[in-house]
């Protein structure tokens, strides 16, 4: 039985690690002054946190503080509750604004954040997770890693012209990528005649490729071992549905989240959007993978590579999945 998290059961009860000391009316007045430019709900969440120490109130405080420092015309993005929003690129937060955010978060949550801990916080989700771990006294998470196409090409066994990831971000909780359909893809010459449409099988392929990248960059393996790029293959998928015809010029927003990972199988859910429109979802797809000693790994390509113009070469390693519309 779980007690109401906001109601300590007795005067001496101290259910949460964050509850360091009593919260006086003076503290509340100071908190109100500190948060005077934040939404009322931010202040309310901060009061609840300071009264109870319940970390569940922290995300609302953190988002409220970030919102207060973001230019008004960009604030609407925060309403989308997208943890992948990038502080710099999407919200215009520079390093000085980040410091302002930190000073205010430190102040209202009565915590201390070190400079070097800040450097890895790239997305709203990073900030929320980081502060949550700090408050719960948990080890700090691995930061989200951003990979431009040069780095993706450097680590992936799949290469142009069959690589459908232009840029990607990988964290321990999942991965996101973008791919712009250029119209120069070789298969669009025939799919379809005088009517280029991105094959659904290739959209499934793009999801699979992001799964490969996640296995190579995102999962924690046993000490001294890494996932071997040459051992990853597609095994199956379920619940694949295409919702939107995608054509040259569309930018695919590709997302996957791991559902189960147990050697030698990793199962993901995945989705592709174009803007706010759902383009495809996959309830489940599974990749198989193997490990090798970290020392034996030789990088595939470590130099920046400009994606080659399309030409008809071999198929990719991962997917032979057949989408319903292909």
């Amino acid at each position, binding site marked *: 039985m779980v007690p109401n998290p906001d109601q300590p059961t007795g005067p001496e009860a101290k259910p949460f690690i964050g509850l360091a000391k009593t919260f006086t009316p003076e503290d509340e007045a100071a908190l109100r002054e500190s948060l005077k*430019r934040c939404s009322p709900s931010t202040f309310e969440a901060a009061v609840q946190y300071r009264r109870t120490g319940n970390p569940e109130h922290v995300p609302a405080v953190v988002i409220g503080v970030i919102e207060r420092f973001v*230019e008004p015309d960009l604030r609407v993005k925060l309403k989308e509750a997208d943890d992948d929003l990038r502080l710099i690129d999407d919200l215009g937060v*520079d390093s*000085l604004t980040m410091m*302002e955010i930190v*000073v205010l978060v*430190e*102040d209202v949550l009565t915590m201390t954040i070190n400079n070097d801990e800040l450097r890895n916080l790239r997305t709203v989700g990073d900030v929320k997770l980081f502060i949550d771990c700090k408050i719960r006294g948990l080890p700090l998470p691995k930061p989200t890693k951003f990979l431009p196409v040069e780095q993706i090409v450097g680590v992936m066994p799949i290469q142009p012209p069959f690589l459908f990831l232009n840029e990607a971000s990988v964290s321990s909780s999942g991965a996101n990528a973008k791919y712009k359909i250029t119209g120069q893809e070789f298969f669009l010459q025939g799919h379809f005649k005088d009517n280029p449409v991105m094959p659904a099988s290739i959209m499934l392929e793009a999801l699979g490729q992001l799964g490969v990248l996640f296995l190579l960059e995102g999962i924690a393996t046993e000490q001294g071992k890494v996932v071997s790029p040459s051992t990853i293959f597609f095994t199956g998928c379920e619940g694949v549905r295409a919702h939107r015809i995608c054509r040259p010029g569309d930018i695919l927003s590709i997302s996957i989240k791991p559902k189960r990972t147990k050697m030698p199988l990793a199962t993901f859910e995945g989705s592709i959007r174009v803007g706010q429109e759902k383009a495809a979802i996959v309830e489940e797809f599974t990749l198989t993978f193997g490990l090798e000693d970290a020392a034996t790994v030789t990088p595939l390509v470590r130099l920046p590579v400009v994606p080659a113009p399309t030409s008809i070469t071999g198929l990719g390693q991962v997917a032979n999945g057949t989408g319903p519309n292909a």
Partner: protein
Amino acid sequence: MPKVYITGLGFITSIGNDRASVTNSLRTLQHGFEHYAPFQGPEVPVKIAAPVRGFQLDSTDPEDWTFPAGYTIKREVLRGMSPNAVYSWCAMQQAIADARLTDAEVSNRHTGLYAASGGSPFLMGHMLHRMHTQGIMKCSPLGIVASIAGTLNFNLVAHFRIKGASGGFSSACASSSHALGFAYDELALGRQKRMFVVGAEDGNLDAILPFASMRALSLQTDPNLASRPFDTGRDGFVGTGGAVVLVLETEDEVARRGVPVYCEVAGWGQASDGHNVAISHPDGQGLAAAIQLALEATATPVEAVDYVNAHATSTPIGDTSEARALKSIFRPPTTRPAISSTKAITGHGLSLAGAMESGFCALAIRDGFMPGSAHITNLDPECDGLNIIRSTLSAQPRVVLNNVSGFGGANVSLVFKQA
């Protein structure tokens, strides 16, 4: 050497926040003094100041600040600003519009900016207090940028995307004349084509009251008597703030753009007293030398000078010193130039003074008037033989001198000529 002209002006001052109202105040000798609210407590011996109107910048949190209609400053710009940076940001907008400069003409490697302010004692005090009471890491990350003496050039160079020469000058009340003089040099030496010159001060309690203990401020309670340079009853200066921006351009740039000019900046001279850390030389030796050098540098005969905008701040010692310096230069039988101190209506702008009064000189030359020296009832006998004009003359001066003297005995004299 190319000639240098003033092509644009911007004013945020105690006597007006635009060119038209400043000109009107200078012509009619309307002063900007009032019983300044922050001075009205019984513990403050000084009562009068000349605040800038239309701005509300008395919070330590820039997001509380308000501006006159027409000026909006984004939070990310505002957060590193001092009050004097805000004033200068607005004066920059005016000067850029006045000089009809495009964004590209403002931001290129041939356009620079020299600035002068005393920083922001107000925000510095707030930051240090917070540091000592709340903790070192609890200060605003940009507190230092907003408060030290370079705050003007830091802010303006970044926000107006200045790519040419930049820097700040720190010679107290001579600062913005030094900025103007060295900006002239940049243009005359062919190193830049265009220079912004900015003088600014917070002009609030923390900027003004530290001068009280050295007995430099007027203790008068009547706004009409507090600032009266060259009057026997003068008892100190009245503090003011704000910002003035001048746009200086080479003759080639003026011809290329085909814009009207206010006047020529003919040249300048500077010399130091080498005498006292805060008190002018009793005979104004350094100032006289600066004037002499300025006249020589610009090949100006003494008798050609029509008008002198004096530094005279309304302090007993300083005004006497300047009167003696002027008498040593403008001796009979040469024509005596008209002399006035516009500080009688504006108050003393410290680092702002040189730029502000140079702006006044430019208006006087272009619009054809010489502002009078207001509030004189009993002219100091030290001024005998000087033509101190007590009311505004409707005559166009062709050659104008602007003097400043700063702490440490720094003296600068600038020469402006009808174009």
